[in-house]
């Protein structure tokens, strides 16, 4: 621990480790240059994988197949329940099966552009390269992707893309991909190469001699604090969207593993890059616990509109008239109007911001004023109800279950909601954080989506990292340290970390205040959504920072928690996660304040064009902002990784 701190004092050098050479050859060259672990030696290494979503399950399975001994952890009761399961729309791959002009380069280019030029070229190109292998692998596992009558795989186009490269399994693509990875994982459990630890939550990272050595966990049933040591630790713990309280994330999705690693020295990159998804079911009441996404694929056939005038919208809100009473000439199809070439298929950040704008103008259509229509009437007229039902039947059903309204008859009401976080732990090209032996995969890292993620790319990245990147890059590290370079869980570093975890839990239980973790979480969410959500400005962010600091103080003096730590205690789990969200929230605000430009999901009102479009500042902000924790109540230190573009030319994104 100590020597890491010393290293920090002398300053951190961020090396992206992007290989030399032409873009398309970087990954192949790099793979050749990476050291290999002899097959007979692989069994001498232990790897910890935290999280069993697409990234975690695929990494654990692929590494176990190679012969490494893997310990896989998840807080859910089964690895199959990780939140990747809820992804609906699909997974991108540059197969060009549709003969419509797709290629690895085009997928790379779309992703770089879609991310508003805030991602690394090398990483993104590699992602596009391995995308094709992912589909092959999943099909071989028995993932039942949608097919054409001739038996070939079907594709659809997805938000922000002009080619059809998205593979899907009805509206449950994430489920089917995760069950594929889970089955591969299960096979390795049966082979004795993976040991599963369900209902087990990582609460700290153990560092010794400057390297990641293992983790401290809490058994969620018995409450026991335990140590696990390994040669490397992979954090595949997903995103931090629940910092907003209301999001499309699962209730348990949290930042704790990543945040505790951050507090042990891992840099946190671009925390303010969060994605607000345009098509979610609007908020109904203050009891609301989460928001439900309606797949973006709906925008392929649905038309987004609001009434042209405030007056008509007012009547809708009061229930005096319904959507179908509004005449065609009184409707504003605002996405089609403003972006004629992309229309309803503009990227997520653009669609979300425009929905917010029209609602801010008083033209929203729900009683709260916060909703726009997504209308299928024209599509049904054009293709028939049957075709629409075949495409979106399960989504329409889900909508009806929640809202009690039939989308075949009346337009859906939608509003943006927090969905995905592009920021995350800083990693190099090998997916290793700045702490040797600590890796971050999937949504937990920051690396591939820049300031905005394109639809159907999260599943792609999770599986790319797990199946096709980490099996190569991890071997390089393990070969360099050797199998003897590991410490036992009896080591003082583990004992000290265990004690710290226990102390924090004991402290939370002893506060005995008045406010539940739920109430703190909701309050934090309001602050984040209001001041660090779809649109941000310096004044609001400064205010938010103060509010979050006050909230943190109140949390540690007024938390109400029942039950004990030595039993299943969901309230305690929640409190521990909310404590970390509060700290993360402050860093997000700092990051948003630092970035004096608008790019992707980060929209600073001061930095926009006259017609309200985002204004990037490439001269000053073409960098990754990587933040270093400096201790309690200390401002974090900013490190910059300059983004180098060798291939693409930075242009202002335009979807007009």
């Amino acid at each position, binding site marked *: 621990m100590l020597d890491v701190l010393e290293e920090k004092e002398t300053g951190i050098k961020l090396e992206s480790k992007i290989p030399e050479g032409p873009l398309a050859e970087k990954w192949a060259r790099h793979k050749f240059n990476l050291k290999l672990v002899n097959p007979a030696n692989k069994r001498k290494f232990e790897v910890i994988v935290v999280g069993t979503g697409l990234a975690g399950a*695929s990494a654990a399975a*692929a590494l176990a*197949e190679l012969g490494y001994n893997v310990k896989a952890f998840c807080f*859910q*009761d*089964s*690895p*199959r*329940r990780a*939140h990747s*399961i*809820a992804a609906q729309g699909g997974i991108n791959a540059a*197969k060009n*099966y549709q003969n419509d002009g797709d290629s690895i380069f085009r997928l790379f280019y779309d992703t770089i552009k879609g991310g508003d030029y805030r991602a690394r070229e090398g990483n993104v190109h590699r992602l596009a390269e391995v995308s094709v*292998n992912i*589909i*092959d*692998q*999943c*099909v*071989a*596992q*028995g993932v*039942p*992707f*949608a*097919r054409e*009558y*001739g*038996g*070939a795989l079907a594709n659809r186009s997805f938000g922000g893309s002009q080619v059809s490269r998205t593979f899907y*399994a009805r509206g*449950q693509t994430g489920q089917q991909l995760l069950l594929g990875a889970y*089955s*591969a994982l*299960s*096979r390795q459990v*049966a082979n004795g190469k993976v040991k*599963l630890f*369900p209902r087990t939550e990582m609460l700290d990272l153990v560092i010794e001699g400057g390297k990641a050595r293992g983790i401290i966990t809490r058994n969620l*049933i018995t409450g026991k604090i335990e140590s696990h040591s390994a040669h490397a630790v992979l954090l595949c713990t997903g995103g931090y969207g629940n910092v907003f309280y209301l999001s499309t994330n*699962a*209730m348990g999705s949290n930042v704790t593993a990543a945040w505790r690693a951050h507090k042990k020295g891992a840099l946190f990159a671009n925390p303010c890059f969060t994605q607000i998804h345009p098509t979610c079911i609007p908020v109904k*009441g203050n*009891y609301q*616990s*989460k928001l439900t996404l309606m797949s973006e694929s709906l925008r392929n056939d649905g038309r987004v509109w609001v009434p042209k005038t405030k007056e008509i919208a007012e009547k809708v809100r009061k229930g005096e008239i319904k959507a179908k009473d509004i005449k065609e000439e009184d409707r504003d199809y605002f996405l089609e109007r403003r972006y004629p070439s992309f229309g309803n298929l503009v990227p997520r950040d653009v669609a979300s911001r425009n929905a917010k704008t029209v609602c801010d103008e008083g033209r929203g259509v729900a009683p709260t004023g916060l909703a726009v229509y997504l209308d299928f009437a024209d599509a049904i007229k054009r293709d028939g109800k049957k075709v629409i039902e075949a495409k979106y039947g399960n989504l329409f*059903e*889900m909508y009806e*279950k*929640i809202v009690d309204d039939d989308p075949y008859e009346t337009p859906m009401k939608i509003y943006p909601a927090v969905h995905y976080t592009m920021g995350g732990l800083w990693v190099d090209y090998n997916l290793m954080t700045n702490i040797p032996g600590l890796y971050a995969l999937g949504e937990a890292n920051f690396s591939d989506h820049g300031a905005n993620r394109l639809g159907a790319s999260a599943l792609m990245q999770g599986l790319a990292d797990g*199946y*096709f990147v980490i099996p190569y890059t991890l071997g390089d590290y393990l070969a360099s340290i050797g199998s003897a370079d590991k410490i036992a869980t009896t080591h003082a570093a583990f004992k000290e970390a265990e004690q710290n975890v226990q102390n924090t839990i004991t402290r939370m239980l002893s506060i005995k205040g008045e406010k*539940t973790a739920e109430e703190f979480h909701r309050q934090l969410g309001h602050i984040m959504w209001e001041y660090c959500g779809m649109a941000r400005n310096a004044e609001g962010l400064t205010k938010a920072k103060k509010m979050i600091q006050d909230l943190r103080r109140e949390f540690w003096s007024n938390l*109400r928690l*029942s*039950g004990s730590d030595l*039993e*299943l205690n969901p*309230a305690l789990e929640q409190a521990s996660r909310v404590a970390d969200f509060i700290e993360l929230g402050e860093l997000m605000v700092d990051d948003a304040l630092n970035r004096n430009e608008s790019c992707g999901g980060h929209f600073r009102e001061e930095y926009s064009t006259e017609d309200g479009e985002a204004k990037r500042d490439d001269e000053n902000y073409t960098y990754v902002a990587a933040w270093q924790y400096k201790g309690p109540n200390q401002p974090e230190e900013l490190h910059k990784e300059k983004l180098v573009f060798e291939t693409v030319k930075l242009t202002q994104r335009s979807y007009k």
Partner: protein
Amino acid sequence: MNIALKVWRQKNSQTPGKMVDYKLSDVSPDMSFLEMFDVLNEDLSHKGEEPVAFDHDCREGICGSCSMYINGRPHGPQTGTTTCQLHMRSFNDGDTIVVEPWRARAFPVIKDLVVDRDAFDRIVQAGGYVSVNTGSAPDANEILIPRETADEAMDAAQCIGCGACVAACKNASAMLFVAAKVSHLAVLPQGQAEHQMRAERMVAQMDAEGFGACSFTGACSVECPKSISLDHIARLNREYLGAKLTSNNA
């Protein structure tokens, strides 16, 4: 709405449990069933009582975590719906709602409404996969699969592993769960190589876990939130019989 609840409370697996009465007022019909429980738990916390433990995560009907046995039915009164997707508009003002955990020997209660479903993971580990190592797959379009076959596989593959089928069954049989996985992989060409072994091993593990026998009553399929068809049990039986007659696998 005013709602009376009778909820199973059980401190842990060693302590006997009992039904406890709670009353809630101002329940909105637009609340989901679990949001109604959130409100109850916040009330309990403020009163200094311990909140009710229940499994839940995605709240979108897909992760399979939620598992409440409501008024004698797994996931409550609405067909094709998980507990998290059930809304209070399915109930009436003044109703009394009885909420229990899944009841099955193979699903021991951990606390309150939380049960241990690890048995399902062990059944999948016994053979619910295609043995293909990462990187060794042919091009995805090399093997054409008729759309009907892919659809049939998808119908089975939709299983969310919640265990409602077991809870609904008078014998606590896991046949629908096992059948869904066996059937999903048996209809696809990729699953052919291991189809017999898979059926045998998964059924053997199901029996070893203490799930009951299937008497083909069909309650499982009716209560399944993904409406998985009994046809898959017929296919499992066929696969299993075929395997027993022809293979040498134990």
